[in-house]
């Protein structure tokens, strides 16, 4: 078991016929992901990578019962693709593209308010439940089925965290990249809620970074939890001079200087185990699960 996706997930690929999409979707299929359909407007009727292609997501869902999607569409078409995913009432859509304009994301967040569809991303490697389903672009060879949940805002640090679990002799229940952008779909709180109630997750590795207040919010949530599974946290960005490439207004909105250390302190105060170096995560995991080391 896992959170959000598993081998029963019926996956639709939005923008399936592109070169990058083809490369990664083929790998996902080879991995065992249950890819049931693709969508490329104007190419409905063809078969690509062994799956039927439709003109719209609604049509694809009607014909195949797809309940999750991965979008390989360019940034400028993301807003339309999310709208389609929401109209087709998918449970989940994963947006890989980076460079989605902020205004489009404001509109997308508005669109998804109260909708059934959850968005992961944009600018994310996606979500993978090792051995079951790969929705995105994760390097599959670093993942192993296991009982540690991994969630990160940064794509590349997601991989680092996964490698750390492996070094501790552990595998992952589900790995999620939330996305590197200013505005994203689901956040740490929503993800941690799911991991906390997932019977197949024993502990979580959570990787935050400078900017925004997602880490402070998840710390607040975790602090108030009555029953807690262990969470190992790391926040990247302590060496960045504050205000780098930011105007005054950027500082004002975060109420003064919020450093990576402030975030990490908030996480530590909430009861999370925090580490100062990402490569120390495996040490803490080995303390929690000595029998696997």
């Amino acid at each position, binding site marked *: 078991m896992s959170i959000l996706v598993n081998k029963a997930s019926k996956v639709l690929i939005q923008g399936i016929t592109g070169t990058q999409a083809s490369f990664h979707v083929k790998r996902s299929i080879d991995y065992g992901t249950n890819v049931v359909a693709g969508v490329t407007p104007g190419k409905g009727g063809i078969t690509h990578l062994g799956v039927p292609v439709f003109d719209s997501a609604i049509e694809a869902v009607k014909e195949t019962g797809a309940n999750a999607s991965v979008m390989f569409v360019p940034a400028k078409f993301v807003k339309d693709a999310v709208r389609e995913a929401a109209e087709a009432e998918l449970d989940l859509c994963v947006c890989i593209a980076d460079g989605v304009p902020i205004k489009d994301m*404001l509109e997308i967040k508005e669109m998804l308010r109260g909708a059934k569809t959850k968005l992961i991303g944009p600018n994310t490697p996606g979500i993978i439940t090792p051995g079951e389903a790969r929705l995105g672009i994760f390097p599959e060879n670093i993942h192993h089925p296991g009982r540690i949940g991994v969630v990160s*805002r*940064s*794509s*590349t640090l997601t991989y680092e965290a996964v490698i750390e679990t492996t070094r501790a002799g552990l595998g992952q229940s589900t790995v999620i990249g939330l996305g590197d952008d200013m505005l994203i779909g689901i956040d740490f709180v929503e993800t941690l809620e799911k991991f906390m109630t997932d019977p197949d997750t024993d502990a979580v590795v959570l990787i935050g970074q400078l900017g925004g207040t997602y880490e402070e919010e998840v710390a607040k949530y975790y602090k108030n939890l009555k029953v807690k599974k262990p969470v190992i946290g790391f926040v990247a*960005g*302590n*060496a960045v001079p504050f205000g780098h490439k930011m105007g005054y207004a950027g*500082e004002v909105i975060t109420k*003064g200087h919020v450093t990576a250390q402030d975030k990490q302190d908030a996480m530590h105060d909430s009861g999370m185990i925090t580490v100062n170096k990402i490569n120390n995560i495996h040490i803490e995991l080995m303390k929690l699960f000595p029998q696997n080391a």
Partner: protein
Amino acid sequence: MNIHEYQAKRILRQYGIVIPKGMIAYTPTEAKKAATKVSFRGPWVLKAQIQSGARNKGYFLEKKAGRKGGIRLIKSRREIAVEAEKMLGATLVTVQTGPKGKQVGRVYVEAYNKVKKNFYASLVIDRTLPAITLLVADTNNEDITTLAISAPEKILRLPLDLITGASSEQIQKVIDFLHLSPKVFKNMETFVNGMHQAFVDYDAVMIEVNPVGVTAAGQIIALDAKMSFDNNALYRHKDISMLQDEYEEEDRELKAAKYGFQYSEFDGNIGCIVNGDGIALAAMDLIRTKGNNGTACFLNVKGGVDKDKIAAGIKIIMTNPRVEGILINILGGFLRCNLIADGIVAAASEVGLNVPLVVRFEGTNKDEAKDILEHSKLPIIIAEDMEDSVDKLIEAMEESD
């Protein structure tokens, strides 16, 4: 992307916002002519156009520019050309420019407007809501960033509706917060919603007017203006892209942007090539924990690149004179490691490799990538994980000293 004050003011004016009469000048003679056109008797305000705040509190590196800052109140017309002459070509340093400062290439000549009161206003995105949010403060000459830390309650924060902007109740709140007369309501509404509409129409990420002036007659005037735009949305605003002042961007930064990369400079000695913001931050953190080393620059090549682009990126790093060692950390997902390896080999064979280079690959096609490097016979060090890569690089840098 940022634009100059006078350009931001021109945009705001299209939305009904009142701005002082002003003209841009590139030479002292132009400044003198401009002064006559914007106000017959003066006084005037002469403003250095560099993309930075706090210009008034800044100072010039050159003696000839005098001891005053980048914004000067001028009372007689004769002085206009004299002061413009001092500022043009000189280097203005502010808290936002860093110690190198920025050279002033043009000055903005404005009519001085007598105001009864000043306040701070900006629009930014509050990502927790998320919403375009209006920030207003009665700054009383206090620095807004100081206020944000010392007395955040003195800053009013109002999230605005994306489509309709500020409501009447919100406008009233602003007026009450600033203790202004009710008669300014209409003008305040035009000001706030003008800013909001400009923000939405132009895909801005920040508009800041500091200060906003309120005249005795209740007029609301944008005495300053700063606008930043979402680089990812510039494709739908050709008019804004054209305003890009290449002079303001670091040369290497601009080159990197042309390849779709993100490049930032710091004051350390190690050049990093990474494929994500997170790994860039984590690498910088690690470097700082090791002795006296720091990051000189990082180049984020993001995803979906080809060999030629990577080679170009590496050359950008190699041309930074601060760089004494290069650290490449690639976690291939979308990006395939073998493409990076090809790029490294291409760049190194073309421009030569005169500083130690450590590479760490993980993920998609990492074994192919290692093979490529090993076959190249170049003095490239391969590392196992991020910390190992930093350690190996520092060791190699110490040896080459």
